[in-house]
C-alpha cells in the first residue's frame, strides 16, 4: 500500500502530502483503492466539491435572480437584490400566464418546430437512404455538396432569403420560416442518418428484397423502424434548433400573431423596458418549455450534439 501512496502523492498538493503520514488511517474504501489514501482523498474531495459548487453557483445565480426577481416588484429589485422576495408578488407571473402574448408565441414556436422537424427528418431520411445504400456516379459529389453546407453561415443567406421569401409571398407565413430552417438542417441530419443507415447489414436488405420488398417498402417498413434511435436524435436536434432560431423569424414575421418565443421575449423586453420584474417573469416562464424538453430528451440531445459535432 505504501508504494501506491508514494506513487500517487507527487500529483497532489504539498499540504496534503505532509499530513498524509500523520493521519494514515485509511477508510475501508481507501484501503481498497491504494492510490487514494483516506486523508489526501478527503482534502482532494473537499477541494473538488468547493470548485464544483462555485461553478454551480455561477450557473444558478443568474437564473435564480430571474426566478426570484419575477416574484418581486421593482422597488424590491433595487433595494433587496439577493434576499427572498418580501412580500412575494405573484402578479408578474399570473398576469403573463393569462396573457395571449405569452401563449401565442408558445403555440407558434411549437407548430414551427414540429413542422420543421417533420420536413427535415423526412426529406433527409430519404436522401440519406440513397447516400447510404445506392452506389452511383456523382454520389460523392452530391454528398459533399450537402456536407459543405454545414459550413455556410446562416447569416450569409439571410438577405437573399428575405428577398426570395418576399418575392414568393412567404413573409408573415410560417412556411417562410419552416422551409429555410429545414433546408439549413439538411446537412447535419443527412450526415447523421447516413452513417446510421450504413451500419444496418446488407443481409437485412437482401432478405427484405427477396421477400418482395420494393426499395420504398424496405425504406418505410424496415429501415425507418430500425433507425428509431437515430431518428429520435436528429429530431431532438431539429426541434431545439428551430425553437431557438432568432434571426429568421425576426425578419420574416412582422405580424405579432406569428411571433415565436425568442421574438416574443425580445419584444416583451422592449415593451416593458422599465418594468424589470415583469420582464424577468416572462423570461423565466419562457425558459420552462426548453428546460422541460431537456429533462425529457437529455440523452438524445447530448448524444446527438456529440455525434453531430464530430461528424461535421
Amino acid at each position, binding site marked *: 500500500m505504501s508504494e501506491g501512496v508514494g*506513487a*500517487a502523492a*507527487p*500529483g*497532489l498538493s504539498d499540504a496534503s502530502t505532509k499530513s498524509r503520514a500523520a493521519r494514515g488511517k485509511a477508510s475501508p474504501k481507501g484501503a481498497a483503492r491504494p*492510490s487514494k489514501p483516506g486523508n489526501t482523498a478527503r482534502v482532494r474531495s473537499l477541494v473538488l466539491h468547493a470548485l*464544483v459548487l462555485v461553478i454551480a453557483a455561477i*450557473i444558478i445565480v443568474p*437564473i435564480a435572480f*430571474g426566478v426570484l426577481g419575477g416574484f418581486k416588484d421593482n422597488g424590491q*429589485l433595487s433595494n433587496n*437584490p*439577493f434576499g427572498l422576495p418580501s412580500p412575494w408578488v405573484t402578479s408578474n407571473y399570473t398576469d403573463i400566464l393569462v396573457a395571449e402574448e405569452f401563449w401565442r408565441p408558445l403555440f407558434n414556436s411549437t407548430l414551427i418546430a414540429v413542422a420543421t422537424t417533420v420536413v427535415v427528418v423526412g*426529406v*433527409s431520411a*430519404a*436522401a440519406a437512404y*440513397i447516400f447510404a445504400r445506392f452506389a*452511383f456516379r456523382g454520389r460523392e459529389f*452530391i454528398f459533399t*455538396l450537402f456536407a459543405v453546407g454545414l459550413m*455556410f*453561415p*446562416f*447569416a*450569409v443567406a*439571410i*438577405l*437573399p432569403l*428575405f*428577398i*426570395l421569401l418576399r418575392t414568393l409571398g412567404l413573409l408573415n407565413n410560417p412556411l417562410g420560416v419552416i422551409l429555410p430552417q*429545414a*433546408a439549413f438542417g*439538411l446537412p447535419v441530419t443527412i450526415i447523421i442518418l447516413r452513417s446510421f443507415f450504413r451500419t444496418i447489414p446488407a443481409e437485412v436488405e*437482401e*432478405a427484405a428484397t*427477396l421477400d418482395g420488398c420494393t426499395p420504398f417498402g424496405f425504406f418505410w417498413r424496415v429501415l425507418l423502424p430500425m433507425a428509431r434511435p437515430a431518428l429520435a436524435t436528429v429530431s431532438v436536434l431539429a426541434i431545439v434548433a428551430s425553437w*431557438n432560431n*432568432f*434571426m429568421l423569424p425576426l425578419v420574416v414575421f412582422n405580424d405579432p400573431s406569428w411571433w415565436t418565443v*425568442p*421574438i416574443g*421575449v*425580445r419584444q416583451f*423586453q422592449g415593451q416593458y423596458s422599465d418594468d*424589470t*420584474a415583469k*420582464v424577468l417573469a416572462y*423570461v423565466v416562464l419562457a425558459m420552462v418549455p*426548453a*428546460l422541460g424538453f*431537456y429533462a425529457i430528451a*437529455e440523452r438524445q440531445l447530448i*448524444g446527438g*450534439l*456529440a*455525434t453531430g*459535432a*464530430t461528424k461535421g
Partner: protein
Amino acid sequence: MSHSADQITAPRPSQTAAAPAPVKSQKRQGRRWLTITLFLLPALVLFGVLVLLPMLLAMYTSFFDWNGLGGRPTDFIGLENFQRLLTDDIFLGDLKRGGLLIVLSLLIQLPLSLGIAMLLNQKLRGRGFYRLLFFVPYVLSEVITGVLFTMVFSPNRGLAEHIFGWFGFDDVGSTWLSDPNTVMYSLFFVMTWKYFGFHMILYLAGRQSIPNELIEAAQVDGAGSWQAFRHVTLPLLGPTIRISIFLAVIGTIQLFDLVWVLTGGGPLHASETLAVTMFNDGFRRSDIGYASATSIVMLLISLVFALGYQRFIMRRDIEGAITVMQDKK
C-alpha cells in the same frame, strides 16, 4: 449470412432472375435510377433553392449598389463594395473584435471547459446532477440568455452591480454593457456562461472513450495526476480538442443572436460583429449590396478557416474521432 430465412428464400428468385437477363436488368436499372431520383429530389430542391441559391445571390448582389427595391439589382459596381470594406472602421473593428473573442475563447473558455470536464470525471457525489446542471445554459436560447443577462448587468436593478459592490468596485458595476472598454469582456463572460457546457460535454465524451487502464498504468509507473493528465489524457483527447476548437472558432465568426440581444452591437459599435454589421446595413439602412459584401467576407473567412483547419489540423484524426464518439454510451 447464416440466417435461415435467407437460405429458404434464396433459390426462388435466383432461378427467375437468371433467365431473362438483358431486358430485365435494363428495366431494373431504370427503376433504380427512378428510385434514386425520387428519394434525392426533395432534398436537392430544398437545399438548392433555400441554401445554395441564396449563397449565390449574396455573391452576385455583393457586386452591386442596391437598396433592395425593384426586382433585381442593376447598378453593377464591381469590387467597389469590397474596397469600401477595407477602409470601413466598423468592418475592420469587427475583424479585430472577432479575433479577440476567438483568442479569449481558446485561452479561457475551452481550457475552463476542459478543466470542468476533468473535474466531473472524478469520483464526486452528485456529479450526474452537476453534468446536467452545467449543460442547462446551453439549452436556453441565445435570446433568453441575452435578455436575462441584460437584466443581470442592468445599472439599477441588476445583480452584477451589487456583487461588485461587495468587493468595493462600485464605479464599474453599472457600466458593464454601456462602457466600450468593458463591453467585449461582458459579452465574452456571457458567451462562456452559455457555451462552456457544450464543450464540457464533448470533452467528457472524449474522456470516457479513453480506457482508465492507460491512466492507471501511467500512475503505477510513477506519474502524478498532473503528469498523467499532461502526457496521457491530453494527447488522447487531441481529436476532441481539435473539434471543439473548430466549433468555437466557427461559432464566433458567425456570432449574432447573443450580441444583438445583449448590446445590439453598441455602445458606438464597440461590440459589433460581422453578422451584426451585415444585419444593420442590410435591414436597417437597405444597403443590400454592401451588406452582401460583408456577408461574403464572413463566408470566405469561414470556408478558408474550415478547409484549412481540416486540411492541416484535423485530417489525420477525423476517422479516429468519429469512431471514438460512436463508442461512447
